[in-house]
């Protein structure tokens, strides 16, 4: 697609699993594309739908929510709540032309540095393929 296009991606990652995995990927010197900005949350269960909406309306081309595998949540069940919220958003946003591939939920455990790097790289490539969610020209959002 557009060779000039560099996706901007916001990732809400949980402190206990995916952030730790990101840390591991970094300290292990795994090569990752630099298009993702991480926001460290205590739990994916505290990712309010409005954070995701605000990110997309403010210029993010994709949003990743990533936390502990089922059964591993530090707060017992926050990731299950996140799953319902992401499902909800993926019913709402596509009605307004936001492709549901722009909002993804993944489980990446603390020891899975490899998986984190691969997840991020693959997501960036997918969004690069999808092209920009162009909100830049929209004065009223």
């Amino acid at each position: 697609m557009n060779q000039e296009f560099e996706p901007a991606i916001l990732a809400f990652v949980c402190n206990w699993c995916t952030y730790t995995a990101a840390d591991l990927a970094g300290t292990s010197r795994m090569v990752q594309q630099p298009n993702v900005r991480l926001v460290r949350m205590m739990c994916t269960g505290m990712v309010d739908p409005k954070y995701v909406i605000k990110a997309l309306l403010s210029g993010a081309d994709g949003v990743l929510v990533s936390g502990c595998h089922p059964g591993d949540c530090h707060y017992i069940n926050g990731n299950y709540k996140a799953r319902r919220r992401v499902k909800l958003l993926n019913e709402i946003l596509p009605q307004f032309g936001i492709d549901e591939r722009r909002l993804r939920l993944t489980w990446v455990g603390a020891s899975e540095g490899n998986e984190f790097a691969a997840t991020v790289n693959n997501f960036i490539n997918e969004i690069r393929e999808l092209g920009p969610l162009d909100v830049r020209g929209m004065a009223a959002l």
Partner: protein
Amino acid sequence: MATTVRIEVGEHGPVPVLQDFFRKLLADESLSGIMIPVHLFGGGMPMPTLVTDPAQLDRADPLAPAFPMSSAKLVSRLSKGSAGERFAVVMRPCEIRAFMELVKLNQGSLEEVILIGMDCPGAYDNMHYRDFLGEREPMAASADFHKALAEGRKPASVELAGACKVCEHPAPQGTDIVVGLFGGDISSGIQIMAASPRGEALLGAMGLPPQEPDGKREAAVAALVSEREVARDAMYASVQERTSTLEKLAQYLGSCVNCYNCRVACPVCYCKECVFNTDVFEHKPWQYLDWAKRKGSLKLPTDTVFYHLTRMAHMSTACVGCGQCSNACPNGVEVVELFRTVAARTQKSFDYQPGLSLDQAPPLTVFREDEYQDTVSHLA
């Protein structure tokens, strides 16, 4: 079998007869009051009023095609915590469904509330009710409205509220007592049904002549529902087409001035403090300039689309389609059309029907471990 009674309507029309029915009901020693729409100032808008003195029911007008606000939030006030006494509330089906949602969210209780549901053919929004009324005596106008509908005539040149024209729940569900208006001629009689053991006890004690159910009401409701469903689906298609991109959505909301009236009027928006009224949205001057520079221009007030999308995420699964959001909008944004279209999809995805059963938990208050595997991506 459930008690069904008939009250005869004489030459004075259905409104005084219903007032009389509610007066007798209020005489039951188990009830201390009744909330019902009352014309407090002669003409004008009938407002929900908590009446304890039976004599003051003489301006009550439960048939008025006016819907100034959803009384669900009011009944939430009346029932959150105990009054120590039992009272009845006369509500429209959509108000009852909204109240059920509030009960599920611990914002009210059915413990001391006797729900009386009115069959509801629809109502006018606030501006159009005034036009409908004109110079007429309001209670006579209410009777005329129902008479015209029963005869298949359009009651007035003004249109019913948009929400009502696409409402597929004209008959109340989950109540104690139902006042049946469909399928009969209410200028000759009205049938009233008990719909719960509590309603049975109250209605049975009144000693009114029983009526054999003839199935006419059910048939009339079914016909109305299928008509409404066609209109509703056409509305969904139209809204989807008009909001299929973010830009079109922004245009659809183009006259919104961020007054948040829709949220205030919404019976299921129950948060004490909404994030959109907090410091989070007290932006600094340099932020506005920064955003404007990034895009070249910035519409003020900001965050309009953001507000509506967030509200969809917060309440669309609970939306009962009452249309009070549109009624409260000062600028004619088609709010209920948009929210119902979104809600249709979110409610379907969680297999949720708001307000119909207390056993169905609001989708975002529960979860199961083994559900919605499709929502999780495997990108590695």
